[in-house]
């Protein structure tokens, strides 16, 4: 049995807003497995546009879930609502038992994130940036933690260089290191290897894999790299125009659509009319 199962949309469920769309493919989690992230009927409307349109899923503790979709699919907005940076128009995102729209400060110290849409202060050195965020997250022995991360992500030669003078790939590695500074239980990664060369990208994936296993962390990963998703994720959620259009394990999706790999499944779904 899958960790995450589909169930049929409940047509009688209460709606958050009068004009909210009715169709969605919500999911439930196996009751025996504790959830780290629960997203229920999540919607975000900007003006007349639904950026996220009735999305529901559950991420069990200790799993890595891939969130896929083309540009504008609603992945980043979904992640922002899970972090509590954006308040949903309707529905809710619950992390470790806390509603992120109302109780985010109770749980933010146990989470972290990385996104290409956010940068670290460019004039500060890598060490200074990591120190600031280490202190913000209340990390004990910040210096030792920075040294360990510097070893893991090959940051030792650039620790005392201004972050703004690093290459795009180096900045990405620093951002991932920042995301791990507090050894988070929940890690949200938005395209973590987007600007890395294949060798470095593979290195970062290995680091994330090791971290996930050692810490038992829950990872929600948004990526356009299907190989990365196949390798890291236990389960995949595919979004399009703010909605979930498909979900399952990589194997299930490949079999369901009779394709060779996840890349082909994604292309098929992206080109279909939803």
């Amino acid at each position: 049995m899958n960790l995450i199962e589909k169930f049929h949309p409940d047509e009688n469920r209460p709606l958050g807003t009068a004009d909210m769309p009715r169709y969605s493919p919500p999911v439930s989690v196996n009751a025996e497995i504790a959830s780290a992230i629960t997203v229920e009927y999540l919607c975000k409307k900007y003006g007349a546009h639904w950026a996220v349109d009735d999305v529901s899923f559950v991420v069990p503790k200790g799993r890595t879930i891939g969130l896929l979709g083309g540009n504008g699919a609603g992945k980043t907005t979904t992640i922002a609502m899970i972090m509590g940076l954006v308040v949903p128009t309707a529905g809710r995102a619950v992390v470790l038992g806390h509603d992120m729209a109302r109780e985010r400060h109770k749980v933010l110290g146990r989470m972290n994130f990385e996104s290409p849409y956010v940068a670290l202060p460019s004039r500060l050195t890598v060490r200074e940036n990591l120190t600031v965020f280490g202190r913000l997250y209340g990390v004990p022995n910040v210096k030792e933690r920075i040294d360990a991360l510097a070893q893991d992500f090959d940051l030792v030669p650039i620790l005392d260089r201004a972050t703004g003078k690093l290459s795009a790939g180096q900045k990405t590695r620093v951002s991932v290191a920042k995301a791990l500074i507090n050894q988070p239980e929940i890690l949200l990664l938005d395209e973590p290897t987007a600007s890395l060369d294949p060798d470095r990208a593979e290195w970062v994936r290995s680091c994330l894999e090791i971290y996930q296993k050692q810490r038992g962390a829950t990872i929600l990963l948004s990526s356009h790299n299907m190989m990365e998703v196949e390798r890291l994720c236990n389960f995949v959620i595919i979004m399009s125009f703010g909605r979930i259009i498909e979900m399952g394990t990589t194997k299930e999706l490949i079999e369901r659509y009779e394709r060779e790999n996840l890349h082909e499944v994604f292309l098929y779904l992206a080109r279909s009319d939803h």
Partner: protein
Amino acid sequence: MTARYCYLLKSSWLRLLELAYWPTMQMLVWGFLYTFLYASDSNLLNTAGLLLGAVLLWDVLFRGQLGFTFTFLEEVWSRNLPNLMMSPLKPTELAASLMLMSLVRLLIGTIPVTFLTLLLFAFNIYALGLPLIALFINLVLTGWAVGLVISGLVMRHGLGAESLAYSVMILLLPLCCVYYPIWVLPAWLQPVAWSLAPTYVFEGMRAVLLDGVFRADLMLECFALNIAYLAVGFATFLYLLRSARHNGTLLTMGE
């Protein structure tokens, strides 16, 4: 957070220099005017002294607010604000660090200028004595309250609201009677002026410089107004932060 801003300041000597640059330039212009007035008629000494005192204290108000707002804007310009907002940092802690850095920037910018004024124009602002502390504190508190509102507006409306950092205080300049006593204003405008905390400070400064009297009553009223301003400023900051989270503007900060 304070460590983050200290790292930033020490990373560039140009930033440090800029903190004192504008106050120095302003002081030079007004200082030469002071010299001219004094040379023309020694009876104008008090008037000229008032001008220099007003310039220095106005700078405390203006730079106090700019220090707060610019420290916040640094986060927006560097696209770091979402990192902070998704960290366990609380709005009160962010506001406290911005206040502390505003004070640091203010002291770096104004203390050298006061000594320069003493050296070049023989005007000693420290001759105000202990009342100077009350004047200074009240001006800084007003600057923080205005800074909180402007920072909130930037969070809610993005960098389109950036120009408010420069312009809001200029709106106060004619109303809070920096260079002239309040009776100069039309009667209908005087209640408006008395609703502004800096008016009490500049009236208080004139009382010390002209009459040698410290108006504790003015300072206490001013302090009470500032506490109300800070409460309103912080409530507005929180409201605009909440509004920004609803509108998703924190996601696109710096773009």
